[in-house]
């Protein structure tokens, strides 16, 4: 059965007819071409397909596309600015060496983005718990945690004087 849904992806309003059995992952990847959304298990175990739905990280593989009606979706393609400037979270992942094969990266960047945008403070252990829905087999998570901590740190004072942070 087909159903028409309207939703926003990366700030752009879209309407399309979908098969009601389709997952949001399938619609995003194969109909809309957002191939940055990765499929690692298809059953909500690995976190690779995470997107933000109204700001909340969700496994898009176990989220039916029909449920996205009226929602605002952010995929990894919508994280950097339009002119290609990386977000603070993306920059932190690059700088901290948190990327290896890159397959878990989009999901982790999106979850970290949600944490950063929440404005809350997290202890190391809390941060680990928040990120524990994402498997990564390459990095041993150490640099991912560093990147997440860097992403959540308030903006540092940086000026020509060469001092960083508080004096």
């Amino acid at each position: 059965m087909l159903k028409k849904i309207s939703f926003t992806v990366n700030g752009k309003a879209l309407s399309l007819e979908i098969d009601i059995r389709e997952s949001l992952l399938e619609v995003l990847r194969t109909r809309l071409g957002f191939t940055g959304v990765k499929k690692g298990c298809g059953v909500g175990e690995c976190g690779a397909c995470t997107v933000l739905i109204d700001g909340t990280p969700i496994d898009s593989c176990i989220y039916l596309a029909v449920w996205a009606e009226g929602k605002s979706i952010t995929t990894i393609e919508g994280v950097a600015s339009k002119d290609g400037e990386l977000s603070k979270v993306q920059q932190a992942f690059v700088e901290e060496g948190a990327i290896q094969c890159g397959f878990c990266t989009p999901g982790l960047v999106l979850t970290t983005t949600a944490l950063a945008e929440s404005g809350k403070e997290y202890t190391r252990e809390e941060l680990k718990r928040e990120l524990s829905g994402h498997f990564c087999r390459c990095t041993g998570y150490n640099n991912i945690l560093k990147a997440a901590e860097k992403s959540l740190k308030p903006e540092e004072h940086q000026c020509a004087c060469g001092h960083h942070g508080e004096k």
Partner: protein
Amino acid sequence: MAFSVVGKSVQRVDAVAKVTGKAKYTDDFYERDMLVGKILRSPYAHAKVKKIDVSKAKALPGVEAVLTYWDVPHLKFATAGHPYALDPSHRDKEDRFILTDKARFVGDAVAAVVATDELIAQQALQLIEVEYEVLEALTTPEKALGEGAPLIHEDCERNILAARGYHIGDVEASFAESDYVIEGEYETSIVQHCHLENHISYARQDSDGRIIIVSSTQIPHITRRIVAQALGLPWGRVRVLKPYIGGGFGNKQDVCVEPLNAAMTLAVGGRPVKLELSREECMIDTRTRHAFKFKMKTGVSKAGKLKGIQIEAISNTGAYASHGHSIAMSAGTKFRPLYAFESIKYDPVTVYTNLPAAGAMRGYGVPQIQFALESHIEDIVNKLGFDPIEFRRRNLAGVGYVDPLSKNKVYSNGLAECITKGKELIRWEEKQAGYSRQSGDRRRGLGLACFAYASGTHPVGLELSGARIVLNQDGSVQLQIGATEIGQGSDTVFAQMAAEVLGLPMDMVHVISTQDTDITPFDTGAYASRQTYIAGMAVKKAALEVKEKILNFVWGMTDIPAEMLDLKEQNVVYKHSGEVVLPLAEVAMHTYYDTVFAQPITSDTSNNARVNAMSFGVTFAEVEIDLKTGKIEVKEIFNVHDSGKIINPKLAEGQVHGGVSMGIGYALSEQMLFDEETGKPLNNNLLDYKLPTIMDTPDIGVAFVETEEPSGAFGVKSLGEPPAISPAPAIRNAVLAATGVKFNRLPMNPQRVFEKFKQAGLI
């Protein structure tokens, strides 16, 4: 020697592509009319296919083709990702058909469907009627070796794939001369790679009828050959492309889906067909790590000198050979440069069973044997009252060791320094003193374990790597390598090497990451921790050749002899003063457009390496054990590596983090479980298979002892696999130190630990 790019933690060349979601993996090459392939899998571990009726499946609208054993070529092929051997006796065991008429494990592929979408394909599978003759399921090596056991492969007596061992010296004489002879038995589990991207490929025919396959593979050139062999085609009729890869760890050093995928496109007139394994399929029908059982017997002198060692090993290779014979050999080979044994007797037997096929996985047999050996050494040390660190140090083989069988010589060995560094980092002495008398439910302990590893496969296998460099008009270069980036960062270190030689910044070296067997230079692929060492030398050679051509061209332009010139910061400069002669970009323009002398500068070369550098390292671990729950927590862990010169410290550290994490999973939680009667997999998914999460992973300390390896470009040695080798035995030895209980079987998960503590009377 001072380098300007090599040795620096430059940013990965693919970091931005990956962090923005632009990096294209196999499944991202979606085509609008792409068909979907699905596999019908045997529900029995061991069964003959008596009859298959596909008529109902074929009649389902949307089904384009149904394939069985009777529809595919009957050419037996081997799947292991090894270079082709001209000598037939060195080839891998050919024991596979594209689809089988005899199931050898639960999940073996007996038929396949091509349909317009996944759902129809799935429905069609259910309409295929198969009549099986069920045979006894041989789920353990003991059963498979048993008297009267049915044969899994008719040409392998007693289900033995291989049993090639060796003797060095006279181990019985060593035992006779020893003051102590100590024995131990050790066992490792079946684990799985769990790369985040499952096996996937898509295949089609081009307008000339050639088969084009895009695949998530570590070995594009080998895949091309094996697909052609399986289908009986000339090798040139197959073209393989490798885009970005979502991890491999050895599991994609095997040809798992591509031959069937090629057969599928041939069955539908060359239309594109995608063959993607689900996670559940990937965990049973790709490869696993071989489970080993070891019996070790070692002679030791009163002075604490290792004399002789006898090792019996049983390796469970599962239903198909894959790398099986080679992994047992690797296990018996790579530990030799570690300790100076005067005699070794190694007797392995690799056995077929009715379980998923085991193959290459990070460390290639060495995590298994090092778990046994380093546990065994610890047991010796404990029994005889030696210091575990000093005992190991005293027995190191060191620099100058010549392997009696391979004749390979060790030119650099920083293991003694690694041990010293690791001991300091974990504050061994200070902590040890505090842990000597513990009581209560929580106990702490320290342990260590060492390893040796190779860089590539020489002299067993061919070590050939190609590199091509083209100088562009703007003075930048394209770098093409046949070596395969799978996440480990090889593209970045190759770019660093080229940039170093050519005096370029990183952004002037454009690495072509996608491998295309029609275009990229020949290379055997990503395995054996070979690429930085073997392909790195090819890149260096190509860059030196381009440099020489540039300087000669400038000689022609300026009358300044090439010997007086050098390349620095995108300029041609005087070697002696650094004074700029010409900007490189200006020279490059002349190589393209000078109406008389134009000749674009390129290099296309390869490195056929007939050397092999040994890398070394050690893990130091501190654990805390909760006696009441059996939970082992790794409090601190340090891996210290001698991998020669480190080309990119940040990337190298990342390799160690990932390897240690894999080692911790191996030690504490991971194992694939099967029903012993039926061989059915019990936990082939990421929920029930206990892969470490971020919450299970401690801070991982990394340090390097940078030796200069003369046989490697810029002094490099292997690093990819080594970090995964020694964590498990180090953790095991720390648990022993804390509790006095020997865990000789992996994993040390809470259930097993709890039961063993009960047996030991600790709780």
